[in-house]
């Protein structure tokens, strides 16, 4: 069974679903963040795989690069927020942070 496009796609969807599960199930906000990273990686795999198998050019790789950029930006800001929350509330439990709930 040679490796084809759908192998990569399945791999990426597994990664994606794992990420989603992480996002939903983790109480720790950093854990949620890790889930998001997994989802992004899954996207990256998809893009590069499509780029190779369908588009036959480098556009997919470019998008993968942009995903890195976005991931980096996102993680930096998110972690800054997490640290801020931790400084203010001494916890990073996502369910403890509900000040804006009316």
């Amino acid at each position, binding site marked *: *069974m*040679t*490796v*084809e*496009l*759908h*192998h*990569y796609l*399945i*791999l990426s*969807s597994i*990664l994606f*679903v*794992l*990420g*989603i*599960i*992480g996002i*939903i*199930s983790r*109480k*720790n906000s*950093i*854990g949620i963040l*890790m889930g998001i*990273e*997994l989802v992004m990686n899954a996207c*990256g*795999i998809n893009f*590069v795989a499509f*780029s*190779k*198998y*369908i588009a*036959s050019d*480098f*556009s997919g*790789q*470019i998008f*993968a*690069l*942009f995903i*890195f*950029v*976005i*991931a*980096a*930006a*996102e*993680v*930096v*800001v998110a*972690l*800054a927020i997490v*640290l*801020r929350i*931790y*400084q203010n509330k001494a916890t*990073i*439990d996502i369910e403890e942070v509900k000040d804006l709930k009316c």
Partner: protein
Amino acid sequence: MTSYDSLFYVFAAVTIIPAIVTVFHPNILYAALSLFGSFFGVAGIYVLLGADFIAATQVLIYVGGILVLILFAVMLSKNIYGMTFQDEKKKKILPTLFGILLLGFLIKLITTVHWNTTLSEEGPLPTTAALGNLLLTEYLLPFELASVLLLAALIGAIILARSK
């Protein structure tokens, strides 16, 4: 099963197994560490897909940057001198069920769709220069936007994280 295929399965395993640990391990530090394996595996997948530059970037950014940051955050946001990184027990059954359901649909979708693949049988190309050209011509605007985004994130993070 060619060596390419076997390498794929190796890297897939290297990707998926740490990812599972990441999601389900109660210790957040271990979860973060296993993310390392997952990222590395994805880098390997990229290499298999002929995207060497992307692979190196994956390692550089995810392993050298994001992962380190996450570790930092983990350590700074918990009592770092104790070994208590245990996450409180939480019901993970329902999310997992949902996830498996979703996965099932996805796999069904992937396998049923006929992918119009046109695989050029050339070896890995020198991608760097091509990517650079694309970034500065066709994707110039997104590229610039991305740099603005990064700058904004940088400043925002500094302002957020700076103690008053």
